[in-house]
């Protein structure tokens, strides 16, 4: 007996395109792609970013970094420190200070060195902010931590290992600038993924929850 002679087909699947393996994330891709600039802190469907061990068909859906407002302290300190030598010179005109009685060649080298130190302080503060990145792709969550210039840690977990996502937003400044901490609990080797001081935490949690929902 031939198949189909006695029983009619109830459901015949349509020919689906080969590369639609991640349809569950289609609603997230409806948002237009965004180019990341140097000071981006929150970017949905970012373009122009890639990370180590990224798979060919893996797309970054969410890019998170600390809110730019968290950089204000080091920017302020750097500005104040860079104003110290000119202020000392002005002060020296009115009240002669012992510091300026040192030989001129020492003074030149010292001032250049001083500005190099101020510059490197600002530069390290910037790259610490710049390289502390959290990414959410359609397959996993990637957390890149960079601090104290000699420490960096790259942690990843698959979306199906995520158990819970929540956020906290406390304090006037955080509420005013709309940033907070997002916590991701996983069943993987690393139990916690903390995305600290990220902008729009509610939206970040919502996007991640939608992805988990699509996976589970």
């Amino acid at each position, binding site marked *: 007996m031939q198949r189909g002679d006695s029983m009619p087909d109830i459901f015949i699947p349509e020919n689906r395109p080969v590369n639609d393996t991640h349809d569950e994330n289609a609603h997230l891709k409806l948002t237009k792609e965004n180019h990341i600039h140097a000071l981006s802190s929150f970017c949905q469907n970012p373009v122009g*970013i*890639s990370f*180590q061990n990224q798979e060919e068909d893996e797309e970054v859906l969410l890019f998170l970094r600390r809110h730019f407002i968290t950089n204000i302290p080091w920017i302020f300190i750097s500005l104040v420190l860079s104003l110290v030598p000119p202020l000392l010179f002005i002060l020296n005109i009115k009240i002669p200070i012992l510091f300026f009685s040192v030989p001129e060649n*020492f003074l030149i080298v010292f001032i*250049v*060195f001083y500005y*190099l*130190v101020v510059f490197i302080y600002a530069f390290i503060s910037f*790259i610490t902010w710049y390289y502390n990145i959290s990414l959410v792709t359609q397959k996993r969550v990637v957390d890149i931590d960079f601090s104290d*210039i000699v420490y960096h840690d790259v942690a990843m977990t698959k979306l199906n290992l995520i158990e819970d996502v929540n956020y906290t937003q406390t304090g006037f400044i955080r509420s005013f600038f709309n940033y907070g901490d997002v916590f991701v609990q996983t069943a993987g080797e690393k139990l916690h993924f903390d995305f600290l001081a990220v902008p729009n935490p509610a939206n970040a949690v919502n996007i991640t929850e939608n992805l988990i929902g699509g996976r589970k």
Partner: protein
Amino acid sequence: MTPLDFSNLAQIIQIASIAKYAFLAILILYVIFAFVVFNQVRVMNRIISTPPVSVILTIISFLHLIIAFSLFLFSLVIL
């Protein structure tokens, strides 16, 4: 311990040379530190790439290394 007598020229020269070598030692350490910073920026750019900013940061850290090394050479000559 007797207080330092700055009218004594030999003593001033000795202080100046101690200051010079101390400063040069600090500058050598700073050059090594600048190299570590440059290297870390390169490592981080391999982990996460966001062109063109990644390239700009590498260039800045390299220029910083060059300036630090130049300052060391400059100090060797003028101090």
